[in-house]
């Protein structure tokens, strides 16, 4: 047991840090996610793709980096410390592993390169109005008609679908047996006739999620991943991966640093808010919880690197990670005091928009409201607790 980095890891850290500093697009430094265009979202990804660093978690044979657990940890730390725009999870973190684990050779050949290069933007068609926490309750139907599936249904909470070229989608191909049976995993071209994307504006004033309506959408049968009616295994595999990436430790560290800077600048009765016993205590509590989560994640990664896959314990990472993110945004909003009130969401800003209050107050409340979603999505935190109760504690 040892917490020190080996010299080669230190060297790797230096290499990574220099690469980011030298190559990260200038115009994206410090930019808020809500302000990004489609091109902005992809800019950094495309630079990483050229370097061969787009998919640190993939096996080398499919274009991954072959990094050790420690190297990946360092990569995340340095990316977060610099404040790079987090890579889009849909292709790299979600679909990629599904394709190289369950796809056939043809699918590997056409799907993986597009993810790596950033040329194909994927979105995730999982949730439905009647199937949220109970994902297996999904009703979107796909019926085989010759060598095409005809898809009809209604997906919801589809993140960034407004930019997507393709959607990976859970559909019901049979209504027999338990609800988990009869689900299939289908790849759908978003340009197919019959697909309509409708924005959902959320309480933070942003447009990130959408409804996707599918009406007689014809999808080639070869776009089926794995076996028909056996998609539930894939769905669960994907959700497991989703959980383990969700802790966001390195980004939360950076956010706490930023929070501390803000609290240093905000004055309470003439003294920095950071010097207030109450506020200092709350930041300390956050940092301690985050440190614990960091080591919990490191322990998980260490056992993964010994061939134990991400077990149900990884639900802890989702629960604690999102709770910490929510507390950071809540405390940041609290730090800016009265200037948490002004409310001009990105979408409502004209060209002559003048910011109100100190710069660091910008977006504090939007961020707080936006982050309420994190305990809901990716399997709500209640569902995660159900998973631990059942799978870990055997209750």
């Amino acid at each position, binding site marked *: 047991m040892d917490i020190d980095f080996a010299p080669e890891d230190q060297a790797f850290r230096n290499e990574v840090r220099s690469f980011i500093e030298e190559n990260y697009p200038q115009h994206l430094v410090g930019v808020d996610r809500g302000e990004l265009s489609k091109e902005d979202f992809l800019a950094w990804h495309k630079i990483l793709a050229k370097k061969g660093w787009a998919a640190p978690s993939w096996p080398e044979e499919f274009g991954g980096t072959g990094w050790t657990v420690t190297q990946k940890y360092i990569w995340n730390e340095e990316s977060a410390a610099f404040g790079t725009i987090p890579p889009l999870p849909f292709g790299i973190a979600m679909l990629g592993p599904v394709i190289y684990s369950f796809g056939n050779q043809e699918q590997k050949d056409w799907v993986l390169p597009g993810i790596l290069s950033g040329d194909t933007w994927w979105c995730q068609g999982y*949730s439905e109005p*009647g*199937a*949220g*926490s*109970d994902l297996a*309750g999904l009703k979107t139907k796909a019926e085989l008609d010759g060598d095409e599936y005809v898809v009809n249904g209604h997906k*919801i*909470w589809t993140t960034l679908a407004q930019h997507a070229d393709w959607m990976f989608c859970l559909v019901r191909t049979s209504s027999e047996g338990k609800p988990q049976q009869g689900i299939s995993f289908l790849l759908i071209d978003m340009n197919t006739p019959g697909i309509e994307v409708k924005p*959902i*504006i*959320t*309480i933070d*004033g942003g447009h990130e*999620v959408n409804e996707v309506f599918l009406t007689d959408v014809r999808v080639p049968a070869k776009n089926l991943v794995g076996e028909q009616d056996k998609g539930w295994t894939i769905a669960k595999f994907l959700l497991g991966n989703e959980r383990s990436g969700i802790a966001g430790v390195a980004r939360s560290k950076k956010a706490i640093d930023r929070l501390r800077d803000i609290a240093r600048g*905000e*004055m*309470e*009765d*003439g003294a920095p*808010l950071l010097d*207030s016993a*109450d*506020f200092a205590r709350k930041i300390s509590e956050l940092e301690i919880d985050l440190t614990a989560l960091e080591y919990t994640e490191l322990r998980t990664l260490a056992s993964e690197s010994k061939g134990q896959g991400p077990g149900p314990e990884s639900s802890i990472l989702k629960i604690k990670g999102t709770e910490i993110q929510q507390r950071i945004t809540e405390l940041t*909003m*609290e730090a800016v*005091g*009265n*200037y*948490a*009130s*002004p*409310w*001009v969401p990105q979408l*409502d800003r004209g060209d002559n928009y*003048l910011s*109100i*209050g*100190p710069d660091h107050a910008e977006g504090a*409340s939007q961020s*707080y*409201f936006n982050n*309420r*979603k994190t*305990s*809901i*999505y990716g399997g*709500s935190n*209640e569902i995660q*607790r159900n998973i631990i109760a059942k799978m870990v504690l055997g209750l």
Partner: protein
Amino acid sequence: MDFSFTEEQTLLRNMVQSFVQDNYDFDSRMKIVRSEEGMSREIWGHFAELGLLAAPFSEEMGGLDGGPIETMVIMEELGRGLVVEPYLPTIVLCGGILSRHASDAQKETHLPGIIAGEDVWALAYAEPQSRFNPADVLTSAKADGEGYVLNGTKAVVAAAPWASKLIVSARISGDQRDSDGLGLFIVDKSASGVATQDYPTVDGNRASEVTLENVSVGADALIGAAGNGLALLEEALDYGIGAVCAEAIGHMKCLNDATVEYCKTRKQFGVPIGSFQVLQHRMVDMFMEYEQSVSMTYMVNMKLTESEAERKKAAAGAKVQIGKSGRFVGQEAVQLHGGMGMTEELNVGHYFKRLTVIDTQFGNVDHHLKRFAAA
């Protein structure tokens, strides 16, 4: 000791409740919020007609002689409707200061316009650096002949975009955070040297940054004695706390009802999600937070007219309760509504946002915990 409402108070509640139900459903509210001005002068006119704008003023001034309990009843019902029209700043804050401390001449000049619904008023007390300390005032009031010249910046002044008059706290003497030396001044928003930057706020209201550059006011602009402004201001803010507590229990009640209703109908895994014990107990906790908040709201509104020390302690305690409970109820209402709770379309998020603003308004939980301990 008596915890019941008088017949008149119950009639008042019923009246406000039906007006809000009939004229202020969620769609109408959002139309008003999204309108150019952001408030409805028509609704405000109706408030005047119904006598709501006259409620807390003395009969001789044309008012209805109501007290904090009447204000509480009105604010609770306005809270249920998420009403954005400026009852709090105009009637409770500015109206309250005028009715308690203005000279007869000032009252005669200003109250009729308020009661008639013609003038909206805003209380400009916070400053960019002041956080929650109303004594932290850099805006200066320099004596100039009989009157004063004001210079400074006022921050996040609720309802200022709609207002024709402001009450402005300014420092006549003393250092930045001295308790002595403040004055409260009536300032015409159209006066030369007054500039505003207007913007919407999280809760669907509007506010302004107000800058005062060599704004001349007469001797008749000063409310009460020179230098004594902080006492008047603190009292007004405590009345404001009584009012937002009432507004907040209106919000919480609606959120709790909506959540219970949603959980009874929303099905997952083939059963209503309200059948899951974890969610049931969460709703029980929301219910208890609401009940405790109701208790503290009654408490503070009964104590506003007691001694200064009792009033301060009551207001601080109530604000802590409402801050915590409002946060809990708001967050959990969103959580239990799942994705739906995250959408602009549903009223849930809007109650949550108003409760979030109330948590900060007049000072947040930490601020009032310290104030409570010191009181």
